[in-house]
């Protein structure tokens, strides 16, 4: 296992001096024909890639008016420069959101603005050449599309959309990222990112049912492909594989059990994640999301509930309806789709669950807002529900809750350092450095408030933190899902289920 240099964490998040190309060495593994072609992308870089790339940019500018606006309106005010966790962790100028976007803007000016066409040098317009493409491949894979910079941009420029467009253009000319395209291929082929075939999934769920029975004495079910269930639960596939993810899965199952609401998991749509978004592909996003709607119809469920997965909730909340809607075949009394936190919160409000907070008395808990949930979605009927509902669940499940510094939570939350399709080992150097702002804020509550557990609701964040926090001397057991806390506190059999 390679050792990665671990930055020194100070007591405050400081803006570092700019350095040039500190991360220029770190490009991801390119996708090969084996993974690219089944996606409908060229298996290798096409011969006339410059022309094709520019054409694709032109196509996207027409298709997405927002992209053109974002490329046009930046005034280089600099408000975003120190807002990116990757800049704060790496000091690389290209990891300042404005500089990252400039990699595309300078090409855009060259081919799509009169001044750039005639006097490129005067307006710093550049050709889409080999050097530029290498920079694109490197630095558009050092953006986790977390959109923290957008919160601070006076024009609301969404840098994530620029990153998505860049990846879409690169895929179109055969320059893809192996991690994302391989995973999307597995979803299309086997139903989930991990590539868990149905018999393995079935065995895993039965194993977890036994685990819950052994530890609680209650026959809590995790049904698979059960037609006629009330709810289709769509969880990230890491919930069927990793620690601490499975603890939340068991938590969801206990909530359904205790509420007396039947649910099912689908083997065909056994994945909430949608990496189509990370590579900017509308088609793949739609195709991945379609599995869920098809299964909701086929299994004749009345409700759709999404598990603890950050970007999945963005896709579900913001895009499912336009991608594959309308959901008029579902029960109109409930949000479609509904987040598992919303679902559990609603049951608590209605008195359907009994939670014994003392079950978590050994824990002093903080909450990490996951970027896609925080900045791209909502939960419940009130503005800010995506911040309050998970916190309410934590407060309902334990006695000791402490928020981190206000500049690092809610809409200003820092990315875990592994989102947006970057949770891959070859980018570990970036992941280790990108987590610095979060670690700084976390260490502070660990010292001040003796926090020993960080709850969150995203499969990527869970995997990233359990991997990189130990490098900072923080044990991986400190990370877990909100429903892990619910799972510890929920009293099974304490009252009759309320539907």
């Amino acid at each position, binding site marked *: 296992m390679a050792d990665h240099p671990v930055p020194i964490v100070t007591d405050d998040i400081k803006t570092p001096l700019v350095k040039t190309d500190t991360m220029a060495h770190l490009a991801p593994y390119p996708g090969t024909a084996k993974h690219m072609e089944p996606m409908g992308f060229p298996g290798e870089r096409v011969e006339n890639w410059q022309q094709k790339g520019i054409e694709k940019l032109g196509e996207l500018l027409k298709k997405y008016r927002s992209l053109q606006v974002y490329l046009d309106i930046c005034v280089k005010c600099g408000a975003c420069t120190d807002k990116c966790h990757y800049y704060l962790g790496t000091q690389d100028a290209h990891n300042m959101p404005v500089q990252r976007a400039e990699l595309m803007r300078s090409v855009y000016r060259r081919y799509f603005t009169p001044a750039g066409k005639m006097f490129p040098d005067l307006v710093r317009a550049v050709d889409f050449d080999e050097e530029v493409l290498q920079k694109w491949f490197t630095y558009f894979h050092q953006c986790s599309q977390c959109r923290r910079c957008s919160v601070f941009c006076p024009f609301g420029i969404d840098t994530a959309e620029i990153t998505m467009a860049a990846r879409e253009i690169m895929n179109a000319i055969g320059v893809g990222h192996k991690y994302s395209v391989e*995973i999307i291929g597995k979803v299309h082929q086997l139903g989930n990112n991990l590539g868990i*075939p149905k018999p393995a999934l079935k065995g895993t769920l039965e194993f977890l049912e036994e685990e819950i029975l052994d530890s609680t004495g209650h026959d809590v079910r995790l049904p698979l492909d059960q037609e006629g269930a009330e709810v289709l639960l769509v969880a990230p*596939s*890491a919930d069927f*594989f990793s620690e601490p993810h499975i603890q939340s899965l068991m938590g969801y199952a206990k909530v359904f059990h205790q509420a007396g609401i039947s649910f099912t998991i689908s083997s065909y749509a056994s994945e909430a*994640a949608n990496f189509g978004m990370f590579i900017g592909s509308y088609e793949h996003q739609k195709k991945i999301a379609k599995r869920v709607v098809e299964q909701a119809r086929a299994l004749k469920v009345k409700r759709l509930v999404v598990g603890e997965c950050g970007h999945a909730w963005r896709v579900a909340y913001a895009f499912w309806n336009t991608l594959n809607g309308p959901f008029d075949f579902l029960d109109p009394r409930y949000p479609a789709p509904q987040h598992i936190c919303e679902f559990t919160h609603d049951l608590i409000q209605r008195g359907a669950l009994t939670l014994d907070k003392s079950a978590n008395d050994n824990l002093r808990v903080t909450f990490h807002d996951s970027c896609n949930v925080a900045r791209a979605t909502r939960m419940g009927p009130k503005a800010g529900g995506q911040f309050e509902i998970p916190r309410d669940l934590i407060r309902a499940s334990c006695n000791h809750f402490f928020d981190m510094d206000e500049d690092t939570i809610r809409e200003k939350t820092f990315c875990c350092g592994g989102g947006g399709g970057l949770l891959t080992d070859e980018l570990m150097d970036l992941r280790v450095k990108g987590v610095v702002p979060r670690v700084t804020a976390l260490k502070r509550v660990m010292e001040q408030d003796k926090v020993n557990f960080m709850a969150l609701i995203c499969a990527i964040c869970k995997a990233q933190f359990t991997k990189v926090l130990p490098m900072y001397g923080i044990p991986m057991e400190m990370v877990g899902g909100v429903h892990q806390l619910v799972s510890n506190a929920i009293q099974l059999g304490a009252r009759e289920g309320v539907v």
Partner: protein
Amino acid sequence: MPSFELNGRTYETDEDGYLANLSDWSQDVAGYLAKTEGVEMSEAHWEVVSFLREYYEEYKIAPMIRILTKAIGKKLGKEKGNTKYLYDLYPGGPAKQACKIAGLPKPTGCV
């Protein structure tokens, strides 16, 4: 495609050194892969490897960590059936490092 040579034979791998072909695996290959990972194989290490291979044979996927910990607990004693023990054996993670030595493909996704 990346590869390595061992005893005069060439083995294809992915970029991270995971065997490209499951059937290329042998104890010698596992020993070689363990060395590249800085892992010294003990009897307990081999137990993990053989369970992973058996499970993969049946299900075409690596087992969930908890299934692995339980199986190891059954084989080597209950006090060893936990995640910490597996991480002591394989500091790079039971899912990734142990899979690599067992000749299984690298797990993908949010793991």
